[in-house]
């Protein structure tokens, strides 16, 4: 019998939390992710299926939506990232595929990404050092895919003082370093 032990994107047993000045950076590991890409001319059908079955209305360009326990981000034209708690929705991709059937292609994304939640005053100061996204004009609920620390990331503004950063899991330590360095430079 294999004794497999889950580790976080940063390689720890428990999610890492760092506090620098007013900023708290938390490693978030409890979310399952799946991408949903509408097939040709099926975007309306995908939106309807998800709205009818789980009450999730897929967001417009640059926006996000929530329908507890699910949340969705706009990724690109007719493509969305759907999230749900990992404990209750470990098989999120399979679950979504059942709902959308042949109207969309669904890909498991959970282990491809890492997520850091950055909270605290001075959030915009931190992110304008890290990326060229217009963070000061981002309203709550908007999401932008851009670069930070040379990595392609999603910046998802959850509240005025709360930004979620989704980046490539294999570069989690580099992204974490970039966030910490930016936090220290404004502390």
């Amino acid at each position: 019998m294999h004794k497999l032990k889950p580790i976080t994107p940063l390689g720890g047993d428990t999610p890492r939390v760092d506090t620098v000045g007013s900023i708290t950076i938390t490693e978030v590991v409890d979310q399952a992710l799946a991408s949903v890409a509408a097939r040709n001319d099926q975007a309306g059908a995908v939106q309807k299926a998800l709205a009818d079955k789980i009450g999730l209305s897929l967001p417009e360009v640059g926006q996000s939506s929530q329908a507890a326990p699910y949340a969705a981000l706009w990724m690109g034209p007719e493509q969305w990232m759907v999230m749900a708690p990992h404990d209750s929705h470990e098989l999120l991709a399979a679950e979504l595929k059942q709902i959308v059937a042949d109207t969309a292609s669904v890909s498991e994304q959970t282990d491809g990404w890492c997520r850091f939640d950055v909270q605290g005053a001075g959030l915009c100061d931190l992110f304008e050092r890290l990326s060229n996204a217009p963070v000061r004009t981002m309203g709550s609920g908007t999401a932008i895919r851009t670069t930070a620390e040379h990595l392609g990331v999603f910046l998802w503004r959850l509240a005025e003082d709360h930004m979620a950063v989704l980046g490539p899991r294999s570069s989690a330590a580099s992204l974490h370093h970039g966030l910490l360095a930016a936090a220290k430079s404004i502390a």
Partner: protein
Amino acid sequence: MIINHPLLGPRDAQEFTYLGDASLLNRPDWQAEDAAEAFHDYLYLRDNPAGEHRELWYHEQGDRSWLVVTRNTLTHEILKVELARDVAKAAGKAAQ
């Protein structure tokens, strides 16, 4: 350089990668009689205008969409930005 993305608004050019002439969208019919010659021209022959040029850009660090950017090669002014899928769909309809 800033590219005014049709969906996302002005975005920094470092988020994009460049492919080349937008005529690459017009792939020849591989079953046509003159397919070999058509593919030769498609692959190797390009206009090299001093002035307005239509080119393909990929928003790699963004929404991963392909764009057709009309750019003045003398001034680098960007005159028009369209989603390549819209351009291709419009061309497809026109051809039918």
